[in-house]
């Protein structure tokens, strides 16, 4: 079952395009990575899903319910963590969290304290006295305390030190193991690679690809590095399936997608000193879509 289903969602801010014809779905129980550089439309998509802004056209459902019509009902089961969190300054962390909990019809007290312990958060401090990273921790606890069925994380790791990031990832994986679906937006591909099962790539407001992370990284793409024995222009390697072709002296690298035999046949015609064929990182695949 699809937890999130987005159909041709379009959002214009006046005449300025936010997103256009975005469609994808997030299945129950998966961690879906939503990747693209800043300004590509990730936050616009997420803010539309949460009806912080309203779509210009198209539609989306969460748990099978229309986001605009049933927004308040849907949000009972959603935990949201934005990249920058802001709270009422004169309140203590615990006041914010209790206020947040008061919107859900369940007792969140015990879970709140457990999460705060894991994230090493001092609940008695006033929000205005918290550092950026500590505010973020309040955000994490706030997003998780009501045991949501869907977590929407928009660039969630900014401001967290690596140790805390790891704890946060462990928490997400733990939630996911108990059935929570996760939409994880990020421009940092290594973290998407660590967590996600499927990814959607967004570019200039439109989806360019939705794929299983293994098939994205898997056998269809190879990163090929060749050390040539003699001078050879790189354009000799321009053929269908080659992208990101780069040459530095006698060192040639490119990403190849297609039948590997065509590369081998081409290599047979030149003198090679060394050859490396490896799995490309998600980052390299990503750049492939952006070039």
């Amino acid at each position, binding site marked *: 079952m699809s937890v999130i289903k987005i159909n041709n969602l379009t959002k214009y801010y006046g005449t300025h395009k936010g997103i256009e014809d975005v469609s994808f779905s997030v299945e129950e129980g998966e961690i879906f990575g939503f990747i693209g550089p800043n300004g590509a439309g990730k936050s616009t998509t997420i803010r539309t899903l949460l009806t*912080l*802004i309203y779509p210009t056209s198209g539609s989306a459902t969460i748990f099978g319910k229309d986001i605009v019509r049933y927004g*308040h009902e849907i*949000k009972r089961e959603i935990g949201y963590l*934005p990249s920058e969190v*802001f709270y009422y300054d004169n309140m203590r962390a615990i006041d914010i969290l209790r*206020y947040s909990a008061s*919107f859900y019809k369940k007792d969140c007290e015990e879970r709140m304290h457990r999460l705060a312990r894991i994230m090493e958060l001092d609940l008695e401090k006033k929000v205005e006295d918290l550092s950026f990273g500590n505010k973020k921790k309040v955000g994490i606890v706030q997003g998780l305390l009501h045991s949501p069925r869907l977590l929407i994380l928009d660039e969630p790791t900014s401001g967290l030190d690596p140790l805390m990031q790891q704890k946060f990832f462990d928490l997400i994986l733990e939630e996911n193991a108990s059935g929570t679906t996760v939409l994880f937006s990020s421009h940092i591909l290594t973290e998407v690679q660590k967590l996600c099962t499927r990814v959607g790539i967004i570019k200039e407001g439109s989806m360019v690809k939705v794929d299983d992370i293994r098939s994205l990284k898997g056998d269809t793409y190879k990163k090929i590095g060749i050390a040539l024995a003699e001078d050879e222009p790189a354009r000799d390697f321009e053929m269908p399936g080659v992208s990101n072709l780069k040459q530095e002296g006698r060192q040639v690298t490119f990403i190849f997608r297609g039948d590997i035999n065509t590369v081998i046949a081409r290599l047979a015609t030149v003198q090679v000193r060394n050859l490396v064929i490896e799995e490309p990182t998600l980052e390299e695949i990503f750049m492939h879509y952006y070039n």
Partner: protein
Amino acid sequence: MNIFTLELRMHLRSTIIWTVALLLLVAGFAFGFPVIRQNVAAMNGVLQMMPEGLKKSLGLNVIDLSQPIGVMGFLFMYITLVAAVQAMSLGLSVLSVELRDKTADFLLSKPVKRITIVHAKLAAAITCILSTNLIFAIVARVALDLLSTKPYPLSLFLALVLSVLFIQLFFVSLGALVSVFLSRMKTVIPLALGVVFGFFIVNLLNESLRARPLTPFSPFAYFSTGTLFSHQGFAYLWVGVNFLLVAAFVTGTYLRYLRKDMPSV
């Protein structure tokens, strides 16, 4: 209910400050009136030298400064001014504060309808205003009773006190309406002062003109001291106009807020 309670807590301090400001005006009246009473003859002399237009502007043509209710009526022009600034800044901030402090994302990602948010916030603002008015009315009544030697018309006192409330309702709803059309306000007080003084000046001008042609354009004119004293109570037409406008502002506020795109932080 949780939003309502939080709003009340957030506005508690400013409500106390504004209430104290109004009470200081009443105290000024209580301590000032005996002095005025002793010098009524001299006061009347001064009044006679004033140009007619100025006297009308200040409502001094219809009120009797030898009576406590007269002096209080004179003071009400300034009381309503202070009260209007309180209401306007409250109205401007109650819905926009979430955008200024960037907490809108937090609140709107909670399972709550936008209409419920507006209900709660407006209810909190009105509660603040009602408390201010209640305390102010009680203290004003006590002060007036202590100083009065002759009975005064209760209808006039009620009209004076309620006019503060009605003017506040006008400004709180106008403030809310303006705030939902602005994308992000940095500060509230300068705008509140500007708008309120604008309407106040329209009223001063209106009172100095023969047929009061500008009455429709300022709530201060609906409840001007001159009008209240010459009617010994409200001019009901303008009370009605005031409430129609309040209803229109509130409706506009709801319609806009329900469809508004929250700017990202």
